[in-house]
């Protein structure tokens, strides 16, 4: 139990918040807006799961927002040119994976610090995209929205995809050696290497995986509206990292599980709507988000201190 105290705490806070909303602002649970909100957060959940794995292996990737934007534009341009869904999906994911591979090669191959590499790639991709698109929206063909399904069907599909990915990754992190090895590499890369693992290849693989997930998440976002905004994905890296951290993933690697990340995503995603439903002024949003992040970390720290002393 104690091992999961952070995840349980976050889940607890989330439940308290949801309960409070149920009492004071039951409109929060209206089915259609709720589905819309969950579908909107599905790409964030995917990104948060990915970044959690990256952080578990003791790296970080702050370029995922730009990866997301570039992949969205790639998907949008292909879709507007008439390519079929399956092909666009495949190419977008591969494109994301390719960009992730660049990050991976620099981090694993040249042993450059991941925060600096991904800072550089974030800036290069973001400015490059701005230069190319100049802010212009991309109009998608009508058949694209919701994969061609009905709105409700599309939203349920997206939410199911995200949950499926979550379940699969959570299961894999207990039972699939590949992901367990990430924990090993993140805890102590040298020990992992001596144990026969290849830390550099694992690091490379996790960045490629992150890129692929960013591509997939981008597509999940693209199908939700008939236009692609090249600015989408702004601030997404901070959202994903904050959600992962609040959910218990350690920046120093080796610790964290995806259920905590799930709780973290839901908690942080509920703050802004909660403000609207509770009729609180919008300018409190950032302060409250910062406070939630700090409280989550402080609680952990106090607990550690008590254990040490």
């Amino acid at each position, binding site marked *: 139990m104690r091992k999961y105290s952070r995840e349980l705490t976050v889940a607890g806070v989330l439940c308290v918040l949801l309960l409070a909303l149920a009492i004071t602002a039951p409109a929060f649970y209206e089915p259609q807006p709720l589905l819309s909100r969950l579908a909107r957060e599905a790409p964030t959940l995917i990104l948060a799961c990915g970044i959690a794995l990256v952080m578990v292996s003791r790296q970080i990737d702050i370029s995922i927002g730009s990866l997301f934007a570039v992949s969205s534009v790639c998907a949008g341009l292909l879709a507007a040119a008439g390519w079929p869904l399956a092909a666009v999906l495949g190419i977008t994911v591969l494109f994301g994976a390719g960009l992730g591979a660049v990050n991976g090669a*620099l981090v694993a191959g040249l*042993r450059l*610090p991941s925060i600096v590499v991904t*800072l*550089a790639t974030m800036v290069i991709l973001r400015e490059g995209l701005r230069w190319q698109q100049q802010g212009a929206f991309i109009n998608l063909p009508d058949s694209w929205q919701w994969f061609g399904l009905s709105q409700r069907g599309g939203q349920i599909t997206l939410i199911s995809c995200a949950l499926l990915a979550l379940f699969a990754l959570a299961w894999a992190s207990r039972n699939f050696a590949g992901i367990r090895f990430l924990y090993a590499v993140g805890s102590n890369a040298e020990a992992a290497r001596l144990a026969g693992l290849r830390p550099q290849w694992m690091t490379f693989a996790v960045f490629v995986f992150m890129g692929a997930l960013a591509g997939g998440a981008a597509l999940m976002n693209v199908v939700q509206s008939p236009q692609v905004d090249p600015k989408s994905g702004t601030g997404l890296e901070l959202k994903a990292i904050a959600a992962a951290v609040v959910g218990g993933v350690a920046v120093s690697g080796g610790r964290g599980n995806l259920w905590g990340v799930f709780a973290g995503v839901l908690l942080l995603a509920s703050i802004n709507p909660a403000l609207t439903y509770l009729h609180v002024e919008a300018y*409190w949003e950032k302060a409250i988000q910062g406070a939630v992040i*700090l409280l989550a*970390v402080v609680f952990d720290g106090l607990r550690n201190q008590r254990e040490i002393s």
Partner: protein
Amino acid sequence: MALAESTRKKVRPIGLLLFRHETILLLVLVGEWLYFNAVGRRFGTPDNTFDIMRHSAEIGLLALVMTPIILTGGIDLSVGSLLGLCAILFGKLWRDGGLSLPVAAGCTLLIGACAGGLNAALIARLRLPALIVTLGTYSLFRGFAEAITRGVDTFTNFPDSFLALGQNRFAGLPAQVWFFLPVAIGIWMLVHRTSFGRSFRAIGFVPDGARFAGLPVERRVALVYVLAGLVAALAAIIYTARLGQAKADAGTGYELFAITAVVLGGTSIFGGVGSVHGTLLGVAAIAVLNNGLVHARQPREVAGMLTGALLLAALGASEIPKLLARMRAPRHGAAPPLSPNNPS
């Protein structure tokens, strides 16, 4: 192999390594200067040089104070947001609080130090990861700035005597340079000439070892974050003078620029290795690049892309020889050399 590597390290003192990275950066800076001089009609003029100085004063201050933080193995993502918060508090204390400008400035510096103290308490006392704490305060400080002003309020109409601080020249140089220089010299002396400052590198290298060696690690780490808050407040005041206006979104994105400058200057993000003069070169290189590209009639986006590429190139340049050495080294049983730059 690990033993051989450590002996090799003894033969090649750290100082020479640092010198090499900074030389490369210096060459880059000189190269930039010469290129833009040739391409831009008005690039090398004193006016333009003073422009560069004026535009990079606040960010330079943030980068300067970020250096000891990163040296100790930490990071501070909240300095940009703190700049914004201090700017509006400065304006509020003066306009709504009725304080005189010097008193308001003093209070702002104090508030900056206290905000830095919040970071210090969480990072040094509670031993929480700096990245996450400052990620939280990054939102928190900006959030307070937005909440206090309701996003809408701006503070303007400062007296000309105050605005001269950011806009006029004093003894031949832009006024803010006279604030920048003492801080730069002070931080350089602190990091390079005091044993206090030299301990930063030890703390960044091996914090536990430093602790066992009797260094008051927590206190020193706390100090650098408080210092960061103080300097961010100073930068906020200069910013307000330069712009003639204080708004809640002041300083957006400055922390990334500061980190880029510090890393470009040769300081390792993992801590333990780095220099203040490297940071200054890094700030200069980026500032000259941004300014020069305007003279070269290039769009702004190119400046961003080139800065990112420069960062990768600067880091890669020092790593490629190591990569080649690793590739040439025999595979079996060869442990990758452990160093502060390569914990994995």
